[in-house]
């Protein structure tokens, strides 16, 4: 490997080791939270008419919960890592190292995706005894997963770069990530919403992430898969452009 490749691989490994060292907090806890949602909503909504033909409510719910958890964890991974390093002051070791913006970007995003793969796999495994999900379109499933986890990881990097204290990250999570992920069709089909909220949902990028992911399992969704892929790709592109601009110019990173 070249020195640049070793530098990139080291940063990636360090970011994975960071969340791995607190696995109970970074993987187990979100899985348990999602299972509680599943338990409560599956019980409460049992007996309702299938959302899609032949798809029961619990089956409908699981992909949405998985994607919601992925969205929240991808964001949390990069934002908390960067914010903590800034507040603790140890980000200087990375800033003084011969690593370029693309290496930072790639390592942080891939590490967050690795965490999301672990979380999603754990969730699908523990729900397996109750829900057997089909896989209708594996490529669409993988693409939606990677685009969604990637986008939120990038958004987490942006928030981490902007944040000067943990309060800023908490505000970003509480006022942006959590509401948008809850109002994105995790627990319902947007077709069940009144016209205003139906239209509003179509402006929420998280809606397309969850809807496209669901399509990968069932072959049914609220909007065509190409629309979900297009929205998610566009969202990733915009977030990546903003984040790379911040890294290249040193915005909020260099004094």
């Amino acid at each position, binding site marked *: *490997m*070249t*020195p*640049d490749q*070793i*530098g990139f*691989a*080291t*940063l990636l*490994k*360090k970011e994975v*080791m*960071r969340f791995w*060292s*607190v696995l109970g907090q970074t993987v187990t806890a979100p899985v348990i939270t999602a299972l509680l949602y599943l338990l409560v909503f599956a019980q409460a909504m049992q007996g309702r008419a299938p959302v899609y033909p032949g798809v029961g409510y619990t089956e409908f719910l699981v992909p949405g919960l998985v994607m919601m958890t992925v969205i929240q964890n991808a964001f949390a991974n990069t934002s908390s890592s960067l914010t903590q*390093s800034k507040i*603790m*002051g*140890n980000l*200087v*070791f*990375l*800033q*003084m*190292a*011969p*690593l*370029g913006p693309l290496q930072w970007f790639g390592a942080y995003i891939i590490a967050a995706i690795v965490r999301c793969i672990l979380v999603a796999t754990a969730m699908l495994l523990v729900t397996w005894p109750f829900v057997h999900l089909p896989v209708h379109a594996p490529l669409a499933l993988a693409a939606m997963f990677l685009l969604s986890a990637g986008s939120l990881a990038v958004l987490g990097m942006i928030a981490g770069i902007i944040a000067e204290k943990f309060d800023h990250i908490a505000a970003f999570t509480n006022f942006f990530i959590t509401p948008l992920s809850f109002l994105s069709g995790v627990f319902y089909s947007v077709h069940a919403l009144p016209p205003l909220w139906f239209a509003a949902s179509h402006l929420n990028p998280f809606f397309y992430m969850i809807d496209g992911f669901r399509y990968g399992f069932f072959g049914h969704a609220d909007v065509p898969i190409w629309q979900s892929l297009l929205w998610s790709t566009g969202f990733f592109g915009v977030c990546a452009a903003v984040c790379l601009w911040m890294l290249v110019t*040193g915005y909020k990173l*260099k*004094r």
Partner: protein
Amino acid sequence: MSSISAPHAAAPASALEIRGIRKRYGSLEALRGVSFDVRRGEFFGLLGPNGAGKSTLIGIISGLVQADEGSVAVLGHDTVRDFRTARRLLGVVPQELVFDPFFKVRDLLRIQAGYYGCGKESWPWIDEMLERLELAGKAGSSMRALSGGMKRRVLIAQALVHKPPVVILDEPTAGVDVELRRTLWAFMSDLHRQGTTVVLTTHYLEEAQELCSRIAILDRGSVAAVEPTPQLLARHPYRFLRLKLADGAQLPAALRELVTGEVGGAYELKLETARHPIGAVFDALRTAGVAIEDVQTREPDLEDIFIEMTGHTAKPAATGAAK
């Protein structure tokens, strides 16, 4: 890995070339066109009172701060255009005691080496540094569990992990015990003998005077002097005379204007060698019939020169010990 002992045949004479650096924070002009060179293989002192711009300059050299104007090159490599090479040639020990709480000491050093493109071949050097800095017993400890002094040692090891030919130590001995100072200077002197260029900022001017062959003094964002240490010390041709007079004796009026302070009941007089020969002082005392109990002379040291040039003591206010 970069080698500390194998100078590059075509390498430039300057380890650091600092040209016209300006940096402004709002209305504060932190650096006002700073230019100087640090030569290869030097033990160089960068001194200045608090707020002189030392840390800003080090931040610009290391990539933590963006200069408004000017350029810095490390062994001929521009720190912006060719930042990867420049950073591989540079190791910086930051002033603040910062650490990553997630990792153990040895893991942290291996990660740091990896950032610089060093793989397993750097591990024996990491182990050697752990031994030399008396950290071997703490290699498996979490950073959180270390004392302040131990954390400082890890910071030093982190800066040296890729064997950089140019090392900047930003107040490495601030608040550390005598033992660590001794260990650190023995280690750095060894590296310096092997060819490493060392740039040191410190509030302990006796350290700078002892270790540095050349010194730059920054004052209010400008370079007040860049000179070899002996030349800097000889710059102000005066000496100090400490006089303890017999009980009840008064200093003659003609000598009072030379007094710079009183220490332990003795007057300290600052004598310009050309204007105030010591013999003339004793003549004045004899003429006035003043009896002397004790006499001491002292050549000006770096602290005196520093105060003369900047109007400040070098030590932070909390621990200030002006002469």
